[in-house]
């Protein structure tokens, strides 16, 4: 939206018609030599429309355009942008995503478990404007991808760049939870949450899921544990990024419901079972609703003044006036 900081200056436009009349149309104006002769009963002499005459008229246009620019600049043209400032703190949410090979199982349409989860998580992040969101990936090892941040574009970029099996082959649920808890340690948020998404059984890492969940619970971090998979045999196709080898086959193994339940209980969270893409979407909606915090918002107006650009234009027009008048019009100053 555009506004004027000092709109009163626009009243100066009232001077424009009399000044143009005075300078260009008033019969008594000075600065010219009149020829007091004309054809009897005919019109007065008019000069031909030479380049010089055209230049002088054009220079007058430049001059008055500069004059107009000065009034506009003095009025303070400013572009304003409204932005929402959240005065209340949202939740801190760490997304802990399984990147093991089994996540490539094609029992979730249109592609596989991992791609479905990625799409659902993307939509979830886009709705959580006031929540700090972080991302941890795990398979044989766990790695922090993004610490909790309001810079959600960064999280989304990192989510898009996640590749199955890039952290080896295995399922280190405990390590993933421990790492996420560590990065929530400094959080001042009232609501600290880990959303764990896995389709396997913990079979790697030095920390058990239960131990990690207990530590999380002691730190006030709730864990929403989501088991993903239809429980049916599913085709799997995954390329190992380490050696480029393509693996094809079927997978039957399912997540460990008991452990996921226990993890949630120990931390005061909830366990969910996602057997289809629709269920997974519904689960994330439920988590979103559960973690909704009171939002106190202030609208802040940012101002971007543009008078300087208009002044530079006015300057160019004035110099243009002088140059055209002098060089092409052959006029005195």
């Amino acid at each position, binding site marked *: 939206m555009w506004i004027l900081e*000092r709109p009163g*200056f626009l009243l100066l436009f009232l*001077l424009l018609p009399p*000044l143009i009349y*005075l*300078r260009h149309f*008033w019969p*008594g*104006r*000075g*600065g*010219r*030599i*009149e020829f007091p002769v004309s054809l009897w009963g005919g019109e007065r002499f008019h000069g031909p429309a030479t380049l010089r005459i055209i230049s002088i008229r054009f220079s007058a246009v430049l*001059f008055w355009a*500069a*004059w107009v620019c*000065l*009034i506009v*600049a*003095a009025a*303070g043209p400013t572009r304003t942008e409204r*932005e*929402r*400032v*959240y*005065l209340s703190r949202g939740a*801190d949410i760490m997304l802990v995503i399984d990147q093991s090979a089994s996540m490539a199982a094609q029992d979730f349409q249109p592609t596989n478990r991992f791609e479905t989860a990625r799409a659902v998580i993307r939509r979830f992040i886009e709705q959580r404007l006031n929540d*700090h969101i*972080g991302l941890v990936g795990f398979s044989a090892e766990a790695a*922090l991808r*993004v*610490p*909790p*941040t*309001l*810079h959600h574009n*960064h999280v989304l970029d990192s989510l898009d760049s996640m590749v199955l099996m890039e952290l080896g082959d295995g399922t280190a649920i405990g390590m993933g939870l421990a790492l996420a808890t*560590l*990065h929530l*340690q*400094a*959080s*001042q948020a009232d609501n600290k949450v880990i959303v764990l998404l896995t389709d396997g059984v913990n079979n790697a890492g030095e920390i058990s899921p239960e131990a990690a969940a207990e530590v999380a619970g002691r730190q006030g971090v709730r864990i929403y544990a989501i088991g993903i998979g239809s429980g049916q045999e599913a085709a799997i196709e995954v390329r190992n990024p380490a050696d480029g080898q393509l693996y094809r086959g079927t997978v039957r193994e399912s997540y460990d419901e008991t452990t996921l339940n226990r993890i949630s209980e120990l931390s005061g969270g909830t366990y969910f079972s996602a057997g289809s893409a629709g269920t997974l979407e519904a689960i994330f909606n439920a988590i979103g609703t559960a973690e909704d915090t009171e939002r106190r918002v*202030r609208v*802040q107006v940012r101002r*971007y003044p543009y*008078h*300087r650009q208009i*002044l*530079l234009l*006015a*300057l160019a027009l*004035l*110099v243009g006036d*002088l140059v055209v008048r*002098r060089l092409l019009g052959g*006029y*005195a*100053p």
Partner: protein
Amino acid sequence: MTFGYPDLLWLLLALPVGGIVVFFAVRRSLRNVLVISGDFQRRDITNLYVVRYFVASVLFAGAVASVIIAAAEPEWGEQTVEDDRQGLEIVFLIDVSNSMRAEDVEPSRLARARSVARAVVTRFPEAYTGVVIFKGAATTLVPMTEDSVAFDLAMSNLSGGLITTAGTSLYDGLATALDAFPPGSPRHQVIILFSDGEELQRSVDTLSDRLRRSDIPVLAVQTGTSAGATIPLSSGGVLRDGSGNPVVVGVDEAVLRKLADISKGRYFQINDPTVTQSIVEELQRRIGDGKDLLFRRAGEDRYHLFVLLAFVLLTAKVVSYSIPWGRKKGIE
């Protein structure tokens, strides 16, 4: 009086040149008129020319000068501005180019920058921090976060090898650092830049407008010494140019000082033993105690007064030009 864009004032030097051009133009014009009018009114016509065109030229030159001064955004006096921001967001913008490996400060420019950054963060445990590094390109190593573990991790792994594009693009670094602040933040925002000031690619001048508008001060910490130093290689020896001479990297104070000036920040030198304390005090001064509403003094922009002056001068020029000064004597 201070100026937001002092470089524009150099344009005022063009006015005397314009004055000389106009002087010769008037002289030639006067000669032409005298050829038409003859010698019998020579003195009157000459006087008229001097009055009309001298006055008009002075008014025009005055107007142009006023527009230049207005565009340079003069400020004087101060106004009290309410500042309800609380808390602090710091983006550490760190140069990881080859020149930062120089060891003219102990143990090296980069290692010293790392330890100063860590020491500053320790003093503000509740601050949000982000880390942006730059070389030939820039990247956000840590987005703005409260997570001090992530900050520590990034600092431990800081090295030139994180970016493969060779060169030093302070421009890219600064642009990425400005983007690293989340929109709509209720906190104070500061960029702490660690660099030796080398600018091998695009000039940061092109960012000055954005920097000014962002209201984010840059605390620019110059990481080298003016004597400069060679660049040690990990394989032993030092970096050499094509002729086999050791490459000696110095510092460019001017770029860093300018960034600090434009953004209303401050300039520091890393080999000053009190640099950490000075940065901490500067940050504390800016954020207050975080409990009460702050009132800060801000320069008052006065550009419109000069625009008004230019407007009046141009209008006066139109009027002076249009008045038939010599009508009573039969000439106009």
